């Protein structure tokens, strides 16, 4: 019984800082835009009682969502976000797996140091690091400059101001979020299994694919969730590295909120994004539970 208050703390935390803001955003999504301060008129007020809410949803509340569905811009932005976030996540996975594997295989006393090396760059400001990528990727940037100096290319490669730059930005920014769960899974593996596979006739490569890799699906799923979900709503990376034609839902949301001052529509986008994220989460959860069966 003593444990009870302790267990309550995370619930209070979640209630105050997760559930309450979420409810505010949802309520905002069902509101009307207005020339006011704050710039909306709530359709629902907390004092009305639930019975009237349903009528109001039918009468007005879904307008913002209808707009989201009817205006192709939003759907396109979401699809484009999913595509870029998925590409970025795939690239992160490809980069992070060998890193996590190498760290897990390193001598025990060196592992913490190597993990720290992965995390240390992330102690500086996220914005500054993304700005640094501009300097690296732009046509007269470091990478193009070097490649041209070495005579490998004649004209600068289009690395900046496009989708490729965003994918690179996502891959760079979210690397630790993939390395850490993968490392946590790999570190617990019994390496004698890999040896057993090699003893039974598998080359190192095949031993990895047939024995080690299948055992790390939990780490892979955790890493994908940790990277894909925030990357989907990413704003800074597309804003700084992407081109003028780059469509990402986070950017659209930002411009609805700050440029158009349409808070209810921005809130509706946020809610739609949340639902869009819940779908892959639910699928992965299913895969996960099937895997354990």
């Amino acid at each position, binding site marked *: 019984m003593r444990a009870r208050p302790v267990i309550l703390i995370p619930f209070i935390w979640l209630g105050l800082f997760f559930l309450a803001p979420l409810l505010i955003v949802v309520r905002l999504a069902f509101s009307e835009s207005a020339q006011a301060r704050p710039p909306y008129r709530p359709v629902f007020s907390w004092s009305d009682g639930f019975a009237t809410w349903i009528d109001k949803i039918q009468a007005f509340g879904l307008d913002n969502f209808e707009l989201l569905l009817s205006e192709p811009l939003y759907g396109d932005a979401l699809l484009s976000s999913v595509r870029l976030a998925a590409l970025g996540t795939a690239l992160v996975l490809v980069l992070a797996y060998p890193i996590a594997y190498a760290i897990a295989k390193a001598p025990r006393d060196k592992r913490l140091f190597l993990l720290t090396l992965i995390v240390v760059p992330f102690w500086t400001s996220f914005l500054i690091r993304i700005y640094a990528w501009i300097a690296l990727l732009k046509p007269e940037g470091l990478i193009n400059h070097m490649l041209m100096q070495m005579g490998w290319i004649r004209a600068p490669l289009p690395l900046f101001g496009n989708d490729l730059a965003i994918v690179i930005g996502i891959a760079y920014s979210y690397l630790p979020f993939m390395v850490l769960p993968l490392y946590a899974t790999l570190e617990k593996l019994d390496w*004698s299994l890999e040896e057993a*596979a090699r*003893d*039974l*006739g*598998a*080359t190192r490569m095949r031993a990895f694919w047939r024995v080690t890799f299948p055992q790390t699906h939990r780490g892979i799923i955790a890493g994908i969730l940790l990277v894909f979900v925030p990357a989907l709503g990413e704003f800074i990376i597309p804003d700084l590295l992407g081109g003028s034609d780059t469509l990402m839902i986070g950017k659209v949301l930002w411009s609805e909120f700050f440029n158009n001052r349409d808070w209810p529509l921005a809130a509706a986008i946020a809610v739609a994004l949340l639902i869009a994220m819940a779908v892959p989460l639910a699928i992965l959860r299913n895969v996960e539970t099937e895997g354990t069966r």
Partner: protein
Amino acid sequence: MPLVSIEHVSKSFGTVRAVDDVSLTIGEGEFFALLGPSGCGKTTLMRMIAGFGAPDQGRILLQGRDLAGVPPHNRPVNMMFQSYALFPHLNVFDNVAFGLREEGVAKADIFARVEEALRLVQMQGFARRKPDALSGGQKQRVALARAVVKRPKLLLLDEPLAALDRRLREETQEELKRLQQTLGIAFLVVTHDQDEAMMMADRIAVMEKGCVLQIGAPATLYEEPKSRAVAKFIGDANVFDPEIRARIDDRALVHIGVANFEVTAPPGAFALGLRPEKIRVLEQERADPDLITLDATIDHILYRGDVTDLRVITNGLPLRVSMLNATRHKALRLSRGDAIRIAFDPADVMVLSV
């Protein structure tokens, strides 16, 4: 030609010489054991045979072919790991079939051979189970089936029984021995348990600190150990540093406690060993004149049912005596502090290098 020849193999990890100039041979169809305390280098040696780690010096030959540079997956040798190393994401059938699939065996043959291997270890009904749903003994059987299904020339078993409880261990010892005879494959077992090695192996190599102390059949190691270390590691032994009273060629007149007798010994210092069960506790009977008889006091009695282990003191010299309880009341008549007479045959005294 022996199946495996290990020639002057050494291997170091940093400054530690894990295996130090080891040479031995394993014959076709032989059940060979590497016996020694943990850290004696036996596992390192076995892993080098499997291809995990190369010798710093020396060579390992399999049927006359040097294995240097041959990766583990190309060696006709399979290993049963101490942890069993069953693949947790595959069921029993797929675990056993793993090696055959890597080899590219035809599908129909895989099925037949896996079935056969599972039958051999009496695990036919468990093909669809995942390793997590098996008991320790069942896992051990599956690991064994997986290791023999490829019909290796040599099967390596790393502490095969260490994870089993005592009763299961005894049963499995017999089964392993029978399986080895059925298959006709040479087995190399690594173990720290001398009983296990004695009961299963045709020959045993006793290892200590990276070196092989002695190689021989279990009975040879027990009855004719060459050194003090082997005598103490295999079985129980009273070991003495005798006083040498006189020497003529290889005959030496030695004195221990109050007894004087002659032994055959090489020149130089030596120790003497006497197994506890070779010492007789005399009752009323008159001792054989060839035996050396001593007066002793019982210091401690360890009753074990079939035998009684006595700690006795004879003229200040402590001795371990193992008495077979051949009649019902033999042990009951003894108690601590009793004065008894004991006897041993000088022919049973083992001469050991120090």
